[in-house]
């Protein structure tokens, strides 16, 4: 049995001051359902991380079923920090593969902009183990990737300008994406000199606080987009427990498993959406997914290999850094961009219409990683 993508949708990412978490979720869901009207939805999977803590709203699945008239079907919310959306997609896929459901709706959503940066930073810290000496030391989520970046610089020829170049690439991609949060051009100099968040990572190296939602309808009924593989792996929950600080094993393992399931290799992938919660994270991910050798990702960035017209285009949507990162929606929004690429009408559409696409969604400081491979059929 195979699983196919029937429709994708996403809201404009950014500041949805006058729209509730519920309305963002319903708007994306409704658009995806409209596009797949011939299908009867058998279950709903919601990806969401901070609905309870930031918006005081849970029971998201039941709200979708009720307000969109889907009937008394089963629903669930999935949480895996920033990988919540990818995990929701995977649970939808597994639900179809089990034979229990024919068609499912997957929706990812987050509403964060109404809270202060300090409050959001505090709640995002819940994506790390909060009972340990690391939390008491004051390590933050961005801080982890700052520590990684300084070590990466120490062990390679890379420096802050390589991270800046990566961030600039994603910003330039977002300029062409009407649904992206940041559509204002930036310069390398501006990125290099921006306010420091956690040394050496500045403002442009960190994904923003974002409101938004994205939805996908999946079915075992055939369509033009087939899911070739869904894989997920876990990794360390603490920095001090990393065997190799410059490796995110969950990404490597989920990638390897996905390639094996799909029967393809990294060279076969035409277009990629990677979880660039920080510029440093995309650097490690392009290495862990086998696109470039270990500790040489910075050379690929220097040579522009991950640009839209490069040999391995990464984050043609603008990525988390510039499309925006409404946490629970991110994994689902990756599908949105990739399906548009495969269908030939994406922002930053590749000249040669791609056939194979890969999405990688990360949770925590490498605690969760989900990889999906999509094929145009």
């Amino acid at each position: 049995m195979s699983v196919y993508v029937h429709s994708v949708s996403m809201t404009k990412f950014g500041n949805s001051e006058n729209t509730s978490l519920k309305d963002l979720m319903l708007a994306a869901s409704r658009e995806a359902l409209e596009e797949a009207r011939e299908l009867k939805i058998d279950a709903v999977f919601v990806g969401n991380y901070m609905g309870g803590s930031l918006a005081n709203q849970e029971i998201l699945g039941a709200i979708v079923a009720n307000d969109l008239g889907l009937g008394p079907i089963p629903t669930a919310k999935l949480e895996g920090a920033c990988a919540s959306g990818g995990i929701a997609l995977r649970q939808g896929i597994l639900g179809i593969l089990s034979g229990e459901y024919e068609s499912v709706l997957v929706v990812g959503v987050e509403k964060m902009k109404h809270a202060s940066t300090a409050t959001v930073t505090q709640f995002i810290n819940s994506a790390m183990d909060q009972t340990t000496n690391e939390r008491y030391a004051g390590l933050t989520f961005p801080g982890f990737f700052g520590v990684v970046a300084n070590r990466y610089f120490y062990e390679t020829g890379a420096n802050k300008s390589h991270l800046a170049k990566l961030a600039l690439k994603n910003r330039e991609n977002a300029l062409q994406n009407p649904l992206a949060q940041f559509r204002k051009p930036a310069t390398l100099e501006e990125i290099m000199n921006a306010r420091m968040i956690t040394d050496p990572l500045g403002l442009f190296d960190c994904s923003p606080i974002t409101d938004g939602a994205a939805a996908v309808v999946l079915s075992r009924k055939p369509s033009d987009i087939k899911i070739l593989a869904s894989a997920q792996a876990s990794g360390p929950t603490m920095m001090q427990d990393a065997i190799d600080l410059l490796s995110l094993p969950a990404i490597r393992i989920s990638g390897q498993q996905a390639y094996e399931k799909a029967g393809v290799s990294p060279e076969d992938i035409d277009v990629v959406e990677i979880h660039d919660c920080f510029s440093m994270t995309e650097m490690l991910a392009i290495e862990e997914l086998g696109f470039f050798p270990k500790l040489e990702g910075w050379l690929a960035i220097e040579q522009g290999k991950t640009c839209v017209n490069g040999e391995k285009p990464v984050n043609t949507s603008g990525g988390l850094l510039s499309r925006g990162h409404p946490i629970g929606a991110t994994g689902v929004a990756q599908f949105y961009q990739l399906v548009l690429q495969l269908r030939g009408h994406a922002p930053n559409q590749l000249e040669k219409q791609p056939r194979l696409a890969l999405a990688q969604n990360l949770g925590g400081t490498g605690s969760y990683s989900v990889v999906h491979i999509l094929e145009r059929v």
Partner: protein
Amino acid sequence: MKVYECCGVESVTKKVYCSTCRQEIKNEREVPDEGTVYSYTVIHIAPADYAHLAPYTVALVQLKDSTAKLTVRIQESVQIGDPVQLDQIADGTYIYQKVRTA
């Protein structure tokens, strides 16, 4: 400083089972409180309950005579490779300082 070991993996974190042999982790030993800075960051944007400390340095310390690493806070600026030692443990935080050479 206590480190816990099983199947060649040492950690300052006490976990229940070993992911290699699946047995309960039972080996523990004392190692010196000193080490070298493996990497670090200076946190400028802190969570609400740490905002009053910012900017502050969080370092990953490679402990001496062990393969285990430890996440600490340091009150001064450091570089990778700097020798550091425990200053004090306060509210569950390992606060480290640079080793002063006389």
